[in-house]
């Protein structure tokens, strides 16, 4: 059995969202002209990521707080990191299709949950305050991960 490419890609993208803030691209003379930023929400020039936020080029995270205080932050971060781990584990060539299907379904559930949380956040900010709120590239990235996971499930069902 071969590596499940769509599932692996979904897992890899989730891991990128969980750990990486931005990737430089458009190089000329070894310097990047632009940075592809993986922020999910941008509220009043503060960029929110899965792991925390960046304000005035300084990163903050509540994941590093002592235990119990960081429980919500860890839960949200795990919603990003676990689909990555599950996606890669479920895509390995020797994995059992039935187990892989369950893991991909779990991934879809997690991504739906993240999308619901961030969309609700955006709606509440837009309608209840005068702050400006935009979705970052990371938010659209989540849709790509969701579609890749759904494709993986449908491929498994067909096979």
């Amino acid at each position, binding site marked *: 059995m071969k590596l499940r490419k769509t599932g692996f890609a979904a897992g890899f993208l989730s891991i990128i969202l969980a*750990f*990486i*803030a*931005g990737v430089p691209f458009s190089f000329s003379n070894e310097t990047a002209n632009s*940075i592809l930023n993986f922020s999910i929400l941008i509220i009043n020039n503060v960029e929110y990521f899965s792991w925390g936020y960046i304000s005035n080029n300084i*990163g903050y995270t509540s994941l*590093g707080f002592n235990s119990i205080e960081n429980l919500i932050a860890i839960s949200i971060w795990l919603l990003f990191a676990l689909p990555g781990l599950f996606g890669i584990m479920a895509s390995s060539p020797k994995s059992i299709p039935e187990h892989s299907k369950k893991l991909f379904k779990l991934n879809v559930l997690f991504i739906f949950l993240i999308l619901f949380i961030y969309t609700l956040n955006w709606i509440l900010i837009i309608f209840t305050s005068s702050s400006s709120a935009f979705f970052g590239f990371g938010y659209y990235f989540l849709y790509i991960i969701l579609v890749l996971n759904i494709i993986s499930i449908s491929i498994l069902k067909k096979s």
Partner: protein
Amino acid sequence: MNKIGFCSGILSIIISFLQSIPLGIYFDSGISSYTSISLSMFSNNNVDFFIWGTIDQSTLVVQSWLEVNLISFFMLNLFMIITGIITIVGSTIERMSGKAIMSLNSLLILIVIIYISIFIPLNSIELIGITIDFMGLFTSLGNGYYILIINIILALVAIRSHPLETE
């Protein structure tokens, strides 16, 4: 391959060598990160204790267990490194020997947890030269300790789910 065992091995290697997990990685003349999660086991008197050694946050002096205390070096650092390596190797062996390695993995992690939770607070002066209150330790546990707990749960699950080749 025992994937859960493999994850347990990777976690053992991570806490054996790393001080923190970088978050918000960006690429600006090399690899940097905006923030990180500390992997300390516990903190006491401004000193962070890791599997590999200690960091004094007031003076920023870093010491490995090899310099501070030889018993702690064997019981924490060496045990975790051995655990990580044998578990990664054992997770690929689909025989009874692989399952035995998984059992050894959970036993070694359990020894490390008992050493941190009981032996260090009871003999803190002899082992690390600082007085640590037995119950006070549990109010200053760090992320590393919780990762160790997750690690032993994974190790126990790995014993049960270890695949065996059928002839």
